[in-house]
């Protein structure tokens, strides 16, 4: 999906920072209890902020039960609990590195890296969510990777560009510009260059100018979606994304212009 030589040009740092805050979750930055054991012998039991841990762990025979109990006992001071078995970790990290191929796209490699965690259900354990959805850098997209890539392929025509805009009040708070090449691979990842916009207030006017700007700078803009930060968060959290888009459009809270022919049909189908 992600081209090996994507253009990431003229990124607006404020939009980019805001997008990161909206879309990404870092496990490193979360409060957590870590248990490292080897064949049940506890080698490490520590809180990431070196806070006291309520509850004792003498052995790890059932890592799921240990993780759940530690989480319950320390729910006020942790976001998650991780229980690692050393040999499982060594094997896991060795395995995913061994799958590297020079011609494979980053997203495919990373997706497989995280999917492989599922093959260590007792060796790499987290609570309350499973390891695949907890560790590392997590995308808050509210949809599995396969659904996201399928939606992009289905919705955005090849050799065209999509732009998403998020408003805080009537000012543009964040934007994302995704360009697809003739093979449907993501070849442009950036934001709107706000230095080239003249309109600072007013959602409709900004959306119109942004789409015009995309059309000047990148291959034809096939999709423009603009909504408030509140609704963007709701969209990301929703499992019925098309229905939510339709609902927002019906309420006049979604600016959707242009829309590729694929999207209205889906919207119609989803709400019929």
């Amino acid at each position: 999906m992600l081209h090996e030589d994507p253009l990431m040009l003229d990124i607006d740092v404020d939009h980019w920072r805001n997008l990161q805050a909206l879309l990404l979750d870092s496990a490193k930055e979360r409060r957590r209890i870590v248990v490292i054991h080897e064949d049940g012998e506890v080698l490490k039991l520590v809180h990431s902020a070196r806070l006291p841990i309520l509850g004792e762990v003498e052995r790890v025979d059932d890592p799921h039960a240990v993780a759940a109990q530690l989480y319950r006992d320390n729910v006020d001071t942790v976001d998650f609990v991780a229980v690692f078995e050393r040999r499982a970790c060594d094997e896991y990290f060795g395995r995913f590195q061994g799958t590297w191929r020079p011609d494979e796209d980053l997203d495919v490699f990373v997706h497989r890296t995280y999917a492989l965690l599922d093959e260590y259900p007792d060796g790499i354990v987290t609570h309350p969510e499973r390891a695949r959805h907890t560790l590392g850098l997590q995308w808050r997209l509210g949809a599995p990777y396969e659904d996201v890539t399928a939606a992009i392929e289905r919705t955005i025509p090849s050799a065209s560009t999509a732009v998403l805009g998020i408003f805080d009040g009537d000012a543009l708070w964040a934007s994302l510009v995704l360009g697809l090449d003739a093979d449907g691979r993501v070849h442009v990842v950036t934001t709107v260059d706000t230095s080239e916009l003249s309109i600072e207030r007013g959602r409709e006017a900004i959306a119109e100018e942004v789409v015009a700007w995309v059309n000047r700078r990148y291959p034809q803009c096939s999709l423009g979606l603009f909504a408030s930060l509140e609704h963007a968060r709701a969209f990301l959290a929703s499992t019925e994304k098309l229905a939510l888009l339709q609902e927002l459009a019906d309420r006049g809270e979604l600016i959707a212009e242009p829309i590729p022919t694929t999207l209205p049909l889906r919207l119609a189908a989803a709400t019929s």
Partner: protein
Amino acid sequence: MSTEAIDAGRRAVVADNHRLSVDDRTKALYGGAVHYWRLDRERWSPILDEVARMGFTTISIYIPWEVHERSRGEFDFAGNKDIDAFLTLIEEKGFDIVVRPGPQINSELTWFGYPLRILADPELQALNAQGTPAVLTQVPRPIPAVSYAADKFFDETALWYDAICPILARHAYPNGRIVAAQVDNEMAYFFHVNAYAADFHPASCARYRLFLTERYGSIDALNEAYGTAHRSFDEVEPPRRFEARERVEIPWYTDWIAYRERYLVDSMSRLAEMMRERGLDEIALFHNYPHPLGPGGAVSGFTTPFDLSGLEQRLDFVGFDVYSRKELYHHVKTVLSYVVGTSRFPYIPEFIAGVWPWYLHPGDLGDEEFVTKAALMQGIKGFSRYMLVERDRWLDSPIRRDGRVREDHATMFERANRVAVEADFADLHRQADVLLLANRDYDRLEAASVLVSFPGDFLETPSGFSEYPTFMTVCERPLGFEEPIQVAEADWFAAAYAGLNEAGLAYLISDTALPLERWRRFKAVVVSSFEYMAADVQRKLVEFAAGGGTVVLGPRLPTLNERMQPDDTLKRAVEADGERFVLVDGFAEAIDALSRLDVVRFARNDTRLDVAVHAPDDGSDRRIVYVANPSADPIAAEVSVTPPVTWERELWTGRAVGAAGTLREELPPYTVSIYECRI
């Protein structure tokens, strides 16, 4: 020139005593990076004019093998890849030049600067402890680490160097204005810092055995240290995970860590020699270690696998790159105080001017201004802003790729350069009488004792751990000692750091590999000491004390050396001389002892404030004093230094102050003020 200056006696370009000089004139290396191949050629000249307008004196240039190679051994230097023409243009504009020809340059290029054929060659891939390629997940493609132990890698690099170095040599001083060249880039096993993440390539394992041969001399000596019965060095396998339970097992593990340091020193040295052989022998060669303290990174992390002192025996100088936000003041202070305390020429090879898109939580101009001042405050003498000119996969530089200028950014960078030049920072020296030493032997044990092995990852490894060893990943077994040294040593260092800060004692940081003659510039050293300590470090401490220095150490005295063999050299010296050695458990005792010395110090009404004093070498009464408020709160500061000064002017704003003895100023959150003073 100090005796330790690299063999530069015959050269006009010399890095020593915190200066880079050319023909005995100190150079102000306030520079920044411009990627010629990413710019339209007609933009080169106006963009360089904008760079000059901001007061930069130097242009730093990565040169990408990946971009120039058309096919193996065939190169393209035409159009906007015409590095020769770009260098000529820079010289015409009056800049000095720092070149960085790789082979690795990262530069957010897809293949990190290498032709893909290099990365795709299994014979050139570094291996992890499990025997699979050591893969760095980076954007836009994951890449395998290259084994810098494989001779074939150097043979391939020679093809690139044969093409690029003659061009550079034509512009190298005295032929042109290239004064320094960077050897490779951020070599840290491609961010596989974890001890068992790399490199287990057969060529690396062979070099490991050669390293052991040099270290022990005979297999009998190794067997005595390891408690093994190997018949030859060929039988010795490197450790692939930490399993030690007793102290006798430690040398096998810590030797692997020491080897990993040597691997980096030797590979950079080999590349440097190749550059010198190709005409870059009249300029300074240097290397940049990666910033070890990024978001979620370690608190220390500046020693192993890095070896700044060791590498400066082969190169002219070594620095750490710095990309940091204002909230990480103490991280910035730690690493840069270490560089100032250790390097011949404390230089930041890459210093934040915008960031790459996958940098999590990019800061703003306020962060960059604060970190700039914080770096100068520690005593940094030169830097290269990365990137001065924005381009693909980089955001928020002062100059756009089309030549437009972000005026607020340009104003800040221009002011920083102007203040540095007008106040003659290049000829000032940080005043500090105390040297806080990280003990490399304990750092090696800490690195070796990680319980989990995982690769570096620009997008965050799916473990939740830092690639640097921390209390979250290090084994807690005591290994036959009173406490797990591998955990306690980091806590001891942190306590010493905090204690010195709180007491208002001016200090710098280095590590136990620093040559003894450099320790002697200080009145006291502070170092952790547990049941074992390297024999050479014990002797250096004894000699330092015998020369009149004060040694603060603790919490215990060693009776063993690094091979776990009896050695009570230091213990006997301490017991014989209660004056020069101060054995402490809690750090309050250390502060009491240091406070009795005649040392540079400062007082302030809020211990969150930090202060640094700089003075010229000419013995004049001029002083530059920095006062930092690295907190999120405004502070009504009251600050005085010893010896007392008159506070005349704040340099950044040009504001007159006129305070005698005690400075009283409102310091907003995350600010550093720079004062011109007189004693």
